[in-house]
């Protein structure tokens, strides 16, 4: 019986770039262009039936010299089948744009705002992509590895 990520590779051989199941977490790295297509597929397909987007985050690979630099990580869960799948999309720093999943899972709205806030990755098609944990005047994206831990931000507030 092939595992979930292997099934995905069988179904979309062109779009799935890489597979692994380290410690049993079935993971598929997919091409950026195919994200919407595959997300829609895994939600609708009866074999996958991944109806919950559990988590959406990103990892910055700058010190590890990842090419491309960022990985956007999606965790899906199926309440009916009780299985999980992790999808990953790799994006370059210069062109850090990924398609937004808000149309398929409304929860992606806030998660994507957080990734934009923390990593500066844009989500195309997001209705209102603004910072969520930081304030609007904050400069930089704090979870990027080149953002210094001790960096200070200028004071903001009403002018006297």
């Amino acid at each position, binding site marked *: 019986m092939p595992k979930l990520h292997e099934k995905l590779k069988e179904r979309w051989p062109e779009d799935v770039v890489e597979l692994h199941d380290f410690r049993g977490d079935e*993971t598929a790295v997919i091409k950026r262009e195919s994200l919407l297509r595959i997300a829609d597929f895994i939600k609708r397909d009866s074999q996958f039936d991944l109806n919950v987007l559990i988590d959406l985050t990103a990892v910055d690979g700058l010190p590890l010299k990842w090419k491309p630099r960022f990985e956007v*990580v999606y965790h899906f869960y199926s309440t009916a089948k009780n299985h999980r799948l992790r999808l990953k999309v790799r994006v370059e720093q210069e062109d850090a744009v990924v398609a937004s999943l808000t149309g398929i899972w409304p929860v992606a709205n806030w998660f994507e705002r957080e990734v934009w806030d923390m990593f500066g990755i844009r989500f195309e098609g997001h209705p209102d992509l603004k910072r969520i944990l930081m304030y609007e005047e904050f400069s930089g994206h704090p979870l990027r590895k080149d953002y210094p*831990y001790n960096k200070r931000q200028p004071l903001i507030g009403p002018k006297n």
Partner: protein
Amino acid sequence: MTTTPEIKKTRTESMLINVGPSHPAMHGIVRIIAELDGEKIVSSDVEIGYLHRAFEKSAEQGGYLQVIPYTDRLNYVSPLINNVGYCLAIEKLFGLEITERAKYIRVIMSEISRVTDHLTCVGASAMELGAFTVFLYMIKAREFLYELIEEVTGARLTISYTRVGGVKGDLPKGFADKCRNAILETRKILKEVDELLTCNRIFVDRMKDVGVISKEDALAYGITGPFLRSTGVDYDVRRASPYLVYNRFDFEVPVGEHGDNYDRYLCRMEEMEQSMRIVEQALRDMPEGPVLLDTEGNVIPAAEMADQGKLGRIEGLPGQTAAVDPTLEGAHKENYASVETDNKRIALPPKEDTYTNIEGLMNHFKMIMMGHGIRPPKGEAYFPVEGANGELGFYVVSDGTDKPYRVRVRPPCFVIMAALPLMINGGMFADIVPTFGSVNMIGGEMDR
């Protein structure tokens, strides 16, 4: 000549009102911007981030073990569950299996925390609806449980109890009896509260059919925990993918049907009972560890022991036990075997060894000093546990060094807050309070 003034046509416009960031009914700091038409909410927006403390960034700065105290501060009403979740994620990276007894202890402590969390949530939201007595009763019940937690971990809130590979110390002497007693008292209080609230007309009127969310919406918003279960989906991580020893216990997963505030209240009340059942079963089935430390005879203070070692008087030392102060009763060498993994690359040595022999000292040094410490293999792991508010997941990426490359927390109430406008729009302004109360928003966990 006087002219009659022209009567101005009145016009209505909606009013924007800020609820929060600081508001008595906001148990945390959050801002709800509500657009009102009279007393009805036309639209609303939620603004979060007021309690952002850069947990994820801080976690990348130090070693793996140094993240544990930070996790206490995520959901500060049930910190033990965060501890357990983080350690399980790291153990998954290592592929490590911990001792039976440690698993049972983790289950017991998690379930006690779940009860304290639900007690706080139900008590606080009842108080906001005027039932102040209930709040006092529930805080009293919570106090019984906090005393237990304090006895085991040494702290009430900032407990930092679990370790990668086990827990900090064994349960103290006589814990089982005290725990049963606390459960007995808590049950009495829950019965009282049940009588006060469940059929109370005022309470039911405020809760029933308020803040309704459908099953489909709840799933689309990724909501988990009691919130999702109140809509009729029986998803509980403890049942769906049992971790630790949850598959050995007999417990029910309470499920509601309407997805309103009242069902969420009922789910939480029933879950407390189920958690207490799990604790009772765990206490019954827990494998016996070694006998607790005999403090008579060969015990000497650790400092004196170290002094003697320095002077070269080492003949009798290895056989002796140090009275380590102020460590907890359960943190002595004798208890280590039953609660910590024997993998020396992961578990810190007992304090007795650190103080008295070179192997223990070096082992300790190698794990504590910068640039040493535990090193999980390269890779990534996501581990979900059932937090009090829903699925609490830790996604940890390791690059093979002693610092976590990336720690991501999947906060359960973050997604519920994302769905909050859905529940309050179209309702009355005053209904924000019970609906928001039933979310049990914990700022520390949501804003990290």
